């Protein structure tokens, strides 16, 4: 892959128009780091990683615009040089991860409950719809309510609604100080403890429980972090970056346990246990739980639904999202058709016939 910045808009639009004319399904490929997040797509491969380059970045504006194929690592590097970062702390799952793939999958890391999700930081997009038409929504300003919020709507749709060409993100100054506290905590009391802590005005930036211990990250001014750490107690974790990286990238030993991985997105105070054996890994101060094990998917879906959330089975090529209620599914289909009338963009990646 060449490392040059280049604008492939015309070539990509041409590809999509041809696919539209011939009704050929396209399998969209960025850095190929996240096939396990969706179902496998049968279609002609359309590589997007060479449409790359950071187009605009002014640190005082806190806005960055880049072509979708830009490596995420390049963006992290540039932001770090100005003491800034992507506050939704996206995982990359590999060195070749692109900005477009990250936003298409709507990925957010441990900071999410406190700073916001990927979609919260998307300000604008340029995208190719399923007709090969270039559309521009949103902008490069923080506040914008002109027209429907399509930029946020297409975030997380895994390429089924459009192909990102450019993405504008809100970025933030990196908090000057961080500290991670850790203590032993039984799984039975972990959820309640996490929720209690999150309801206090502490400068929290991450909170998880690995089954035995509770980890709490504080970020902010030196004085603020120090004061909160004193009040909360616990021990300081050595090498906190490595720990949070392992949670973010799912390389923590928990993820190496046998069995398929489930992501449970539930209201944070949802009490354990999860149906089936084993203790989940609790992240997002309770709102995102990882669970390993074999179970009838319908049982976990029902469990998550009845608690006001949803569950996803993450298994390379066979990932399954929580099924949609019929009325919602048909709305999804109508919206899909409005962006991609011939159903050629990553068909089936999220759901059958979508």
């Amino acid at each position, binding site marked *: 892959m060449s490392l040059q910045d280049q604008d492939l808009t015309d070539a990509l639009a041409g590809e999509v128009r041809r696919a539209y004319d011939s009704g050929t399904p396209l399998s969209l490929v960025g850095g190929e780091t996240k096939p396990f997040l969706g179902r496998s797509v049968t279609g002609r491969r359309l590589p997007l990683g060479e449409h790359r380059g950071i187009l605009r970045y002014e640190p005082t504006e806190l806005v960055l615009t880049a072509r979708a194929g830009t490596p995420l690592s390049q963006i992290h590097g540039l932001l770090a040089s100005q003491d800034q970062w992507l506050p939704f702390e996206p995982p990359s799952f590999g060195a070749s991860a692109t900005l477009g793939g990250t936003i298409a999958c709507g990925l957010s890391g441990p900071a*999410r409950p406190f700073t916001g999700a990927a979609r919260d930081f998307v300000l604008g997009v340029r995208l190719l719809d399923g007709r090969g038409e270039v559309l521009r929504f949103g902008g490069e300003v923080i*506040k914008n*309510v002109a027209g429907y919020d399509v930029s946020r709507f297409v975030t*997380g749709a895994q390429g089924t609604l459009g192909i990102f060409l450019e993405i504008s993100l809100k970025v933030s*100054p990196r908090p000057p100080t961080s500290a991670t506290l850790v203590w032993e905590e039984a799984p039975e009391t972990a959820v309640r403890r996490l929720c209690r802590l999150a309801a206090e005005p502490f400068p929290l930036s991450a909170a998880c429980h690995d089954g035995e211990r509770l980890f709490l990250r504080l970020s902010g001014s030196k004085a603020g972090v120090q004061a909160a750490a004193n009040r909360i107690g616990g021990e300081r974790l050595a090498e906190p970056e490595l720990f949070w990286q392992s949670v973010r990238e799912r390389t923590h030993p928990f993820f190496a346990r046998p069995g398929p991985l489930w992501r449970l997105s539930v209201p944070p105070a949802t009490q354990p246990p999860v149906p089936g054996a084993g203790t989940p890994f609790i992240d997002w101060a309770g709102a995102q739980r990882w669970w390993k094990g074999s179970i009838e998917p319908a049982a976990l879906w029902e469990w998550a639904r009845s*608690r006001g959330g949803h569950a996803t089975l993450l298994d390379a090529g066979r990932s399954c*999202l929580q099924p949609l209620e019929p009325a919602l599914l048909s709305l999804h289909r109508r*919206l899909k058709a*409005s962006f991609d009338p011939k159903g050629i963009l990553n068909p089936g990646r999220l759901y059958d016939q979508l």
Partner: protein
Amino acid sequence: MTHPSLGSFRRVLAARGEQGDRPYGTPGTGGPSCSPREILRRLRGAVPGCPLLSHPEELRPYECDGLTAYRQIPLAVAIPESVAQVQEILRVCRTLRVPVIPRGAGTGLSGGALPNRSGLVLSMTRFRKILAVDPLNRTARVEPGVTNRAISEATSPFGLFYAPDPSSEVACTIGGNIAENAGGLHCLKYGLTVHNVLSVKILTAEGEWLVLGSEAYDAAGFDLLALLIGSEGLLGVVVEATVRLLPRPPLARLIVAAFPSVESASTAVGKLIGEGFAPAGLEMMDNLAIRAAEAFVHAGYPVEAAALLLCEFDGGPEEVDDQIELAEKRLRESGADFLRSSSSEEERLLLWKGRKSAFPAAGRMAPDYYCMDGTIPRRSLPEALLRIARLSEEFRLPVANVFHAGDGNLHPLILYDASHPHELQQAERLGRRILELCVELGGVITGEHGVGVEKLGSMCLQFRAPELAQFHRIKEAFDPDGILNPGKAVPLLHRCAELGAMHVHQGALPFPEIERY
């Protein structure tokens, strides 16, 4: 808000007639399929217990929202109190092809709740219950007619609050906030409505009940919640919402800093933000706004200043005091020649009072004012304010600026007198020029007030035909018959062509093959 007197209202209507300016937004039903009497009869039959207003005197209070220059008496106003009633009303209206205009408190500033002559206003104000507060999950489940402020009041015993705080918070409803994606004085730190709502229940125009989002932090499938928030009542009627609550910070302190020039104040804004300060709010007022506010509430603002910054920090006391001290230093370095930081809650509220009453204060300077809402990149603040001042001279109408400087959201207040012939049109023309300027500087035509009917023309500046066509397709996916709030938010393509405002490249309209309906 100034509500022009009835006399001035008649003049406004007369002025509009002269201008012959009819909004051409999102396509509608093509008109009801039967007589007004028949519609009322069918509605009364369908929802017997539900108040249904149809006498002109009863309808008068609903003829406009906060944008009083546009008025229209509707066919009727329904004030249901149950979701089942809303469902029945929608069913009848769909069958008879009667437009339905959802309405909250009517404080909108872009005509989003402006009635349709042959349509029904669906007032949601009786949906006033806070259904549940869940302190552990930090959420509140509320009906759509609950006011913004009421949520924070109900949750404060738990040490929690609902963060978005539009200046209209005592009156506006959460349903209206969701429809407009309302912002507030503290959205710089806490985000807009879209960042603080977890889930909504809506009824579609087809009467279908859908849950968008979830009680967790995301939902399976497309992010429909993001699409609905800010959709101005076009995609569904919000009948319930679950909002996210935050722990109330133990301390908030406000700095008021005066500057000898607008440029130095703008530079200070860039400096604070770029250096990693995270103010909860960062507001700016220009000299005209400062004088108006000071005369109105005596907050102690220096009336000679060219510009005033209000910069608030909140959080733990250690963090806040740290930031205040450092920010004061930066502000001084940027040229501030007057600084005052609140050292008590009373002082903080007094210092805010001037900013918070800037609208009514402006209202005392002229019989009418027109509030604009464009957003620009922060770096363009000095240029934008300079050029607005020039436009103000050109149109011979004073403009006061009081706005959300931290996120570049301008609120120029154009002062005019509707009793002078043509002043309203002049004000509107000036307003459009200001929005043009925002787009030219890389910004957008509305930061938080929405498009409504007011900015349909300006939408053509910001979007091209293919995007507008996509917006219309989204509307169709939710509401194929065009029942909900027709004529708003998204201009018809031919309207843009008529205005000549569409981006014309090399003398040719883009995508001539697309039908301009």
